[in-house]
C-alpha cells in the first residue's frame, strides 16, 4: 500500500470510528436523524454513478421508492425475511430500471431529464392508483423490522449499526466500480461520446449500465429507510425529495466521489439546525443553492483547494 492510499485508509477508519461511537452521545431524535443521513449518503453516492455518464435523471428518488415498496410488499405479504427482501429490493429496482432503459435512453440530456421525470411520475401514480398491492396515498404500513437473535432493531442504535455496515459495504462497491475500467469508460462516455464509440464503446449499453447499477443501490437504500420507519408512502419519494438529492450533489460537487457525500452531510446538518424555523427552511435551502452556484460553482469539494490557493497568494504577497 503506498502512502496516499494509507492516509485514505486511515481517514476512512477514523470517520467510521467516530460514526460508530457518535449515536451514544446523541438524543433519541438525533439518532433518527443520523440513520437517515447515512441512508441519504447511499442515495447521493448511487446517484453519482448514474450521473457519471453525464445524464442527470429525475427518477432516482422514485427508484428508491421502487426498492422500498418491493421490500415492504415482499416482507409483509409474502413473509420474506428482511435479510432477503433488502437485497431483493435492489434487484427489483434494478429490473425496473432495466425495463425503463429502452425508452429513456433514446433521449439524451434535457430530453432525458424530462423523460425520466415523466417515467418517475408514472410509477408514483401507479402506487397511488393501484390500491392493491400498493395501498394508495396512505401506502403500506406495518412493515416488519429486521430480526436477528434478540437484537431489537426498533431501537435506533442497533438499526444505526445495521445501516452503517450495509451503507459502508455499498459505498465500497460503488467506489470500486468508479475506479475500475468500467468507471473510466463511464467518464469517457460523458466527456466525448463519439470518440468513445469510435474505439468500440457501446454508449447506450454503458448509460444503461450506470442507470441500472445506481438504481440497484438506491433500491437498497429505500428498503433500509422503510424497514426503520415501518411505513412506505408515495409522498416520501416525490419530486421534492429528488430536488434535495440534486441540491446535495450540486452543492457538494460532482467531480469527486466524496463531493456528493459532503453535500449531503453539510446540508442535512444545516437543515436540522434550522428545524425550529420550519417555514423558513425552503427559503434557506434556496439561498444556499444560489450562493453555492455563485461563489462555489465547483462545490464544497473544491473548498480545500480554493482555501489553499487563497492562503498561498496572501503568503506570496507578504513575501513580496
Amino acid at each position, binding site marked *: 500500500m503506498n502512502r496516499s492510499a494509507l492516509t485514505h485508509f486511515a481517514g476512512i477508519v477514523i470517520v467510521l470510528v467516530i460514526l460508530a461511537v457518535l449515536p451514544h452521545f446523541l438524543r433519541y431524535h438525533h439518532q433518527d436523524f443520523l440513520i437517515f443521513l447515512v441512508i441519504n449518503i447511499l442515495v447521493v453516492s448511487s446517484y453519482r454513478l448514474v450521473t457519471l455518464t453525464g445524464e442527470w435523471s429525475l427518477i432516482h428518488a422514485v427508484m428508491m421508492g421502487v426498492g422500498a415498496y418491493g421490500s415492504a410488499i415482499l416482507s409483509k405479504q409474502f413473509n420474506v425475511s428482511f435479510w432477503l427482501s433488502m437485497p431483493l429490493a435492489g434487484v427489483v429496482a434494478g429490473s425496473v430500471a432495466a425495463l425503463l432503459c429502452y425508452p429513456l435512453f433514446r433521449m439524451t440530456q434535457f430530453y432525458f431529464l424530462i423523460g425520466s421525470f415523466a417515467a418517475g411520475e408514472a410509477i408514483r401514480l401507479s402506487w397511488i392508483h393501484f390500491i392493491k398491492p400498493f395501498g394508495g396515498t396512505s401506502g403500506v404500513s406495518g412493515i416488519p423490522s429486521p430480526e436477528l437473535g434478540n437484537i431489537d432493531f426498533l431501537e435506533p442504535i442497533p438499526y444505526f449499526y445495521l445501516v452503517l455496515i450495509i451503507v459502508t459495504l455499498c459505498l465500497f462497491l460503488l467506489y470500486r*466500480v468508479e475506479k475500475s*475500467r*468500467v468507471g*473510466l469508460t463511464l467518464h*469517457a462516455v460523458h466527456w466525448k461520446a463519439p470518440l468513445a*464509440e469510435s*474505439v468500440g*464503446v457501446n454508449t447506450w449499453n454503458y448509460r444503461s449500465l450506470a442507470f441500472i447499477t445506481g438504481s440497484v443501490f438506491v433500491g437498497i437504500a429505500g428498503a433500509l429507510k422503510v424497514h426503520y420507519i415501518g411505513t412506505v408512502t408515495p409522498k416520501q419519494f416525490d419530486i421534492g425529495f429528488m430536488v434535495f438529492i440534486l441540491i446535495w450533489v450540486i452543492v457538494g460537487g460532482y467531480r469527486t466521489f466524496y463531493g456528493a457525500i459532503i453535500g449531503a452531510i453539510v446540508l442535512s446538518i444545516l437543515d436540522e439546525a434550522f428545524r425550529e424555523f420550519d417555514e423558513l427552511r425552503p427559503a434557506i435551502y434556496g439561498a444556499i443553492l444560489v450562493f453555492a452556484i455563485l461563489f462555489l460553482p465547483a462545490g464544497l469539494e473544491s473548498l480545500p483547494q480554493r482555501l489553499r490557493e487563497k492562503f498561498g497568494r496572501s503568503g506570496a504577497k507578504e513575501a513580496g
Partner: protein
Amino acid sequence: MAILEVRNLTKQFGGLTALNDVSFSVEPGEIHGLIGPNGAGKSTMFKNIAGFYAPTSGEIRFDGRDITGLKPSRISHEGIVRTFQETTLFQELSVFDNVLVGTHNRSRTDIFSAILGLDRQKQREAEDSAIEVMEFMGLADRRDQLAAELPLGSQRALAIAIALVSKPRLMLMDEPFAGMNPEETGHMMDLTRRVRESGVTIVLVEHDMKAVMGLCDRLTVLNFGTLLARGSPEEVRNNPDVISAYLGGSHA
C-alpha cells in the same frame, strides 16, 4: 484484395445529395488520401465508413465483409477506428486514462469482475499496451498530464494513440494536420508513417496539399459529392479536372 471497398455509395440528406454514386478502394498497407475542395463530401464519406451515418444506398466492404450501416462501436470491433477533426479527446482525463479507454475493444471487462477484482490480469495487460503505445507515440513523459493541457502536436499524437491502442487494421484520420506549423506537420508525417509501418492501413482526409502529396501512396479526389479522379499523387496533380476544380476555372 482491397482491404476497404466502397461501391456506388450515395448519401442524401433530405433533398441534398452529399455523396453521389462514389466508388473507391484502399489496398492493405497503403496511405490513401481523400481530398477535394470544401463541401466535396470527404467528411460525409468518413462518417459513412465509420458508421456515424448510414448510407442511402451503396455498399461498404471491409476485408470482404459487408459493414454497411453498422453502428460505430460495431465497426470499431471489425477493426476500423477513426480520429476526429480538431482535437477530440477526453479533455478532463489524464493522457494515460485517455489511452486506456482505447483498450476497450481488446480487453473487455464487466461490472461484476470490476467489483470483485477478477480483472486484475486484464487490467495489467491493458495498462501495459497503453504504456507501449504512449512510448511509440512519444507521450510517455506526459503520462499524468490532463489531455486539455497538452500542446496541439501532442494532442494530435494522443488522438492517434487512443485509436492505435485498439489495434485497428484501418485508421481513418480526419484532417490530422489542420492548424499545424511546418515543424509540427513534419513531426506528424513521421508519426503517420510509423503507424503505417506498424501494419495499419491509413485513409486520411486532409487539406494540406504538401503533406498529402508527400505522404500518400494513392489519392481519391471528390468534388460536389462525386468522384473526380483517382491515382497516384503524380497523376492526380496533373489531372486537368482536378486542377480546374481546385482553381475554380473552366477547361481552358
